[in-house]
């Protein structure tokens, strides 16, 4: 119950300057609680008591189910909608013109004090409990056991589109050329499997919006952003219960 309430607050009261200091501090702690819940799936119990969980960082990290546990942190306020990420994605992964693996959403707030518009990059959240994988009748889409990426084995796809209906993030489309549903795989087949360290979108971004890395590595940027007490980190559509691995923050 608590995470849901906090999540809503996190979305609507983003300007933390107006919150008194003590409350702000508590809020941030609660923010971490949410992060813990959605980060690793199995780390729920470890983060249910924030102080205890952070008493031992190593123990915390070991609860991540995958190694590497690929993850992305999106610094939402840095995005300027240049769409270089989208172009790089299309080029790298041969995405057809009618489909997309990543997109930038726009949100307007006419009453905002400074910027009136913000941009929210979205992509497959590589969820820990992915509704698409749950629903696929033939295991054509599956959770990779070593790195946690939600992948496709196209030859098994019957084209029932249950995964498309199931996805809480609209991350899937039917690729007519390969006759199967297609999606973001964190550039695994096009880049990571060939030794590259970043996804095409993360590499192409001139504003360092997309930070990609291994959440189980305590030295990684993603780990240190997600586990930073001074940061508010959230996920999209937490209520869907899919435990996504794409996190959002500002600053």
């Amino acid at each position: 119950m608590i995470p849901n309430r906090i999540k809503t607050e996190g979305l609507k009261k983003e300007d933390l300057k107006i919150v008194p200091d003590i409350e702000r501090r508590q809020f941030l702690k609660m923010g971490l609680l949410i992060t813990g819940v959605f980060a690793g799936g199995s780390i729920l119990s470890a983060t249910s008591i924030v102080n205890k969980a952070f008493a031992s960082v190593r123990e915390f990290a070991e609860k991540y189910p995958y190694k590497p546990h690929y993850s992305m942190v999106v610094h939402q306020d840095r995005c300027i909608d240049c769409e270089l990420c989208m172009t790089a994605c299309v080029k790298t992964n041969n995405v057809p013109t009618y489909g997309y693996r990543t997109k930038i959403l726009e949100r307007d707030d006419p009453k905002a004090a400074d910027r009136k518009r913000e941009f929210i990059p979205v992509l497959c959240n590589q969820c820990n409990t992915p509704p698409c994988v749950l629903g696929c009748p033939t295991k054509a889409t599956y959770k990779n056991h070593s790195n946690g990426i939600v992948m496709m084995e196209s030859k098994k796809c019957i084209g029932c589109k249950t995964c498309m209906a199931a996805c809480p993030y609209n991350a899937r489309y039917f690729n007519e050329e390969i006759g199967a549903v297609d999606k973001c795989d964190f550039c695994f087949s096009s880049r990571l499997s060939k030794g590259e360290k970043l996804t095409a979108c993360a590499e192409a971004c001139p504003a360092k919006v997309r930070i990609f890395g291994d959440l189980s590595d305590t030295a990684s940027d993603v780990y240190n952003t997600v586990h930073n007490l001074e940061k508010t980190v959230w996920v999209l559509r937490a209520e869907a219960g899919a435990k996504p691995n794409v996190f959002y923050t500002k600053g």
Partner: protein
Amino acid sequence: MAENATKTAEATAIAGGWAGVRIGVLQALHGTKGYYAALIISGMLFLAAVAAGLHAKYIGTMHAYGASREVPWGILISTYVFFVVTSTGLCLVSSIGHVFGVKDFMPIAKRSVFLSIMTIVAGFFVIAFEIENPFRMAIYNVISPNLTSNIWWMGTLYGAYLFFMAVEFTFLVLNKPRIATAMGFMGVVSGIAAHSNLGAVFGMLHGREFWYGPYMPIYFIASAMMSGAATIIFFTWLAYKTNGERMDATMMRALNVTTKVGILLICTILFFTAWKFIAGFVGGEAKSAALELLLTGSYAFNFWVLEMALGMVIPLALFVLSRGQNLKLIAAASAMMIFGIFFMRYDLVIVGQLVPVYYELGVNDYAQLLSYAPSAHEIVIVLGGLAFVGLTFLLGEKIFSGHKSEIH
């Protein structure tokens, strides 16, 4: 001696059963002009659907169908749901008589079983054109099953269901009621399991608030009984019209009790629907938006006129007014129900997808609700599915001589 006599009697009955079918085939060649016209029209519609489906596959379903990335399931899915709900309902209603032994329901049983087979085949026919790679399905459903997938369970259990129903019907024709009853029972079990899984296909999508929850499997089973009652009433009436016969007292009694089942189930579904709305408005913004589409939005006509008035309220009134005796009222009510229920399935499948997944995020891209309209290809395939049921019903009446063999 007694054993021999029984065997001889059985052999005679089996021979009689097949002889009846042979005579039926010959009878099918003798019909009125209206009968022929109906056969030809439904046959042509069915062929047109095959052509439309193949053409859609050839040019790509993305171009041929109205579905999209955001609304991936269209009228073919809802029509599939319509057919399999009807089939399961026919199986359940017929089982009251010949599986669970309530004599009053016996006269409608054989036609119900026949129609339940034809409606599920029609469902498979329609969905074959929706599924992009049905051939892969045949292979990977077997060698790469995902046991957490409700689609997998539904497909597999409906396969078993079709088998049991087909065997049951065969033994009904052969006058072997014991095996038929056993198969009927297996059909009921697999039908309920399959059908609740179909509900769960929607109910277990935890990213889709309109469907998510245990409501759907329960609603689907109750709704199936409602469809089944309406369908068997309508087709029994139509059969007697087609064959130009008067109903005897036992058949009238069977329709009378089926009407009561209809009344009970309409009330049940009205109750379910009321609570879905009352509970739904306490939920999130996205769910309320979907419900508002039905109550006051672009689906209000579908909901109030087709689903509520034609599908339930008017038939309920007509069933009550008929007192289970006035055939014209009963037939009109059941026809309206079938028509209304078709749109009930349509609204359920489509409206569940019209609220964008990012709706509550407040982004410009998804500030509006989505839309879907069936394409010409999809409509022809749907009509072809309906025509298939019509065609096989007409042929079945003649071939199996009005499905009259008594079950004891």
